[in-house]
């Protein structure tokens, strides 16, 4: 189901997650958040990738392709790219050529899909190719195979500037994303903007609050010990404020990504990024 968003102006009571506190001490308490609100340095002027805030060892892990585990997924993606698939027994490579042909593609996603009349993120776009052009079943969101293909395609845009889609329909989608971004949600009643605009650069527990630029997805999060997509990262944030997360691949997440990408226009793509 779609996530439950509590609007600041009131309305129906939010459906809250049951307090399943299985992490030792990691859930944010109201007190912790209040302390952050009181002590934060405030938003920074310039936009910076979370990369800039990371310890040198983690930056080194990301920078060296023989050390960045994300490249393992890209390698699996290469195999899938070349493998005939679906009822049509046709490989991605047969239509698209080498994976390098995908240079710059990830930088303009999410984008508008005329045929279905909706915005799609990169993973959904790949699944459309599976369904429409390979006669195959869509791959499960967050599955190893879909992450591998998405990582391979995203890798081809590494170092390129984020260049949001110019499809006119995307304006409205970004508008929805911006609205979600500034809507308070969850038991802690915080908006994305509260943390990532107002408090960016401050600290939450031991973590520095980043500006939340989606430059590095799919990414290898040390917390996950594997690759994950932006949906998964955003679900972590929503659970953090004790909101019911939106469904993987939902229009809400696509809209949020479209807004985040516009907010990060011109910043360098760095997938597969490493993050703590």
């Amino acid at each position: 189901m779609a996530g439950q968003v509590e609007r600041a102006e009131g309305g129906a009571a939010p459906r809250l997650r049951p307090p399943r506190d299985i992490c030792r001490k990691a859930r944010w308490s109201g007190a912790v958040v209040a302390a952050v609100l009181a002590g934060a340095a405030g938003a920074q002027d310039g936009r910076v990738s979370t990369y800039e805030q990371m310890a040198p060892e983690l930056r080194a892990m990301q920078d060296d392709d023989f050390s960045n585990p994300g490249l393992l997924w890209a390698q699996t993606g290469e195999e899938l790219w070349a493998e005939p698939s679906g009822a049509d027994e046709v490989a991605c490579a047969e239509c698209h050529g080498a994976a390098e042909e995908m240079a710059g593609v990830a930088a303009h996603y999410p984008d508008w899909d005329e045929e279905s009349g909706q915005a799609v993120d990169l993973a959904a776009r790949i699944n459309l190719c599976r369904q429409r052009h390979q006669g195959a079943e869509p791959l499960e969101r967050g599955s190893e195979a879909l992450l591998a293909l998405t990582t391979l395609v995203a890798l081809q845009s590494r170092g390129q500037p984020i260049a949001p889609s110019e499809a006119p329909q995307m304006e409205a989608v970004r508008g929805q994303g911006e609205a979600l971004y500034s809507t308070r949600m969850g038991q802690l009643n915080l908006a994305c903007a509260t943390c990532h605009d107002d408090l960016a650069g401050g600290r939450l527990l031991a973590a520095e609050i980043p500006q939340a630029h989606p430059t590095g997805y799919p990414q290898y999060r040390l917390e996950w010990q594997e690759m994950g997509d932006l949906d998964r990262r955003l679900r972590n944030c929503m659970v953090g404020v004790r909101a019911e997360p939106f469904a993987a691949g939902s229009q809400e997440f696509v809209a949020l990504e479209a807004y985040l990408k516009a907010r990060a226009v011109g910043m360098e793509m760095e997938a597969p990024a490493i993050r703590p």
Partner: protein
Amino acid sequence: MAVMINVPETAAPGEVVEVKIIISHPMETGFRTGSDGKLVPRNIIHELTCRYMGQEVFRAELHPAVAANPFFSFFVTAQESGEVELSWVDEAGETVTETRPIEVG
């Protein structure tokens, strides 16, 4: 099993070169409960060996405290052209061997 191995393609005789390897593997500790509430059975890569010129050059013995998708870097003295062989085995009995050529001269 995806793997990335970096052995320099060429080296001078006597040069000490760095070898890097990263292997996709969950390194299941046996201490973790899965979504069904049951312990996930332990399965780690427990040994990684590097051979060159018919000899073992380097070996690592891994325990559950080695992170998922294990990464190793170590050194080999280049002496003659040939192959650097890396092999590893996990507790499910999966053995993998990969070789990379090195030209010494």
